[in-house]
């Protein structure tokens, strides 16, 4: 088995767990905070037999929107962190001003070790795109607030752009730009 595949499997496990955990926690935390009556049923419908019920349609929409938002944030925050960290790390290589700024903000530990690979960013970004697709589909089916879909879609798009930029910079390290290095 190739090393790349092994690393991809290893890196995919955590976001997969986080995605489910974000949705489940979102449902139960929203219900607990707002004191909503929740019912878990076991009717056969779809692949899984467990369903979560709410009595009122407006409540269902509210809980679904916030659980979708929670699932999305669980994936969006680490992805944004990885992209931001890699961008700063790569910027410090060619720009001493960034080192000064990084020192000023006391985030020097971010540039002392580059443990965020493009593969990691790509996998997290892929999960983020899957999650945002689910949110957007929910919006189209009127089961999630529109602003959650807009937020998820826009953020996923920006993270995609960030991932592509990271890839470009990483590929420049392998095949350096003629003007810059020669």
């Amino acid at each position, binding site marked *: 088995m190739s090393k790349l595949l092994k690393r991809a499997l290893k890196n995919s496990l955590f976001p997969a767990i986080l995605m489910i955990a974000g949705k489940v926690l979102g449902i139960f935390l929203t219900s607990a905070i707002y004191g909503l009556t929740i019912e878990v049923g076991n009717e056969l419908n779809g692949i899984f037999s467990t369903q979560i019920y*709410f009595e009122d349609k407006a409540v269902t929409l509210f809980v679904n929107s916030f659980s979708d938002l929670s699932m999305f944030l669980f994936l969006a925050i680490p992805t944004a962190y990885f992209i931001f960290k890699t961008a700063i790390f790569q910027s410090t290589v060619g720009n001493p001003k960034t080192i000064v700024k990084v020192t000023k903000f006391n985030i020097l530990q971010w540039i002392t070790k580059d443990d965020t690979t493009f593969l990691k960013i790509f996998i997290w970004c892929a999960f983020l795109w*899957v999650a945002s697709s689910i949110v957007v589909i929910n919006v189209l089916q009127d089961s999630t607030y529109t602003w959650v879909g807009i937020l998820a879609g826009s953020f996923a798009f920006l993270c995609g752009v960030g991932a592509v930029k990271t890839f470009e910079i990483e590929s420049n390290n392998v095949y350096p730009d003629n003007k810059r290095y020669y």
Partner: protein
Amino acid sequence: MKENKVKKTLALVLEPIALGLLALLFIIPAITVVNLQPITKKIKDLNVLGVTNSSGLKVNIIGGSHLIFLNERIDSNEDIYTYKTKLVKREADSYSKPILEIVNDKDEDVNLEIYGGTSIPTNSDIGIIIEEQRYRLQEPNGNLLTQKITLRPKETYVIYLYIESFSDVRFEEDFELNIKEVQ
């Protein structure tokens, strides 16, 4: 030599399994999240099982997919059954779809009052078809009409919703159909 061969064979076998596993790591959370979506119990029961009242009248939603009639659902409030759907933008044409199945389990005739339409006129002729008989519910100018229908005992009727327009409709609209049992 032999060990190397075993390793190579193992790698060959494990590679596709690992690829499948990787794909599953994306698919399983997605399916789980979709299935964990909360649902409104009342509406779900109504959509799956239909609604029935104590007198033995049963109204079932037929469902299925259609390009013009979307998000169909049925609800009941005391003696009124309300069917709702979203009519999407469409070209000038005639469209129809079986929407409801009404079962009269009583031993006597049941009289129904059927009315409904869209809140904003869509320049469309909207109505229902029962046993090949057309009953108009909304005129193109938006006027609503109430239809009275008698159901024979122990009979099942399929209600079709039809919509006709002579010009393209460029916006979507919610349609509501009410069925009321009268003496």
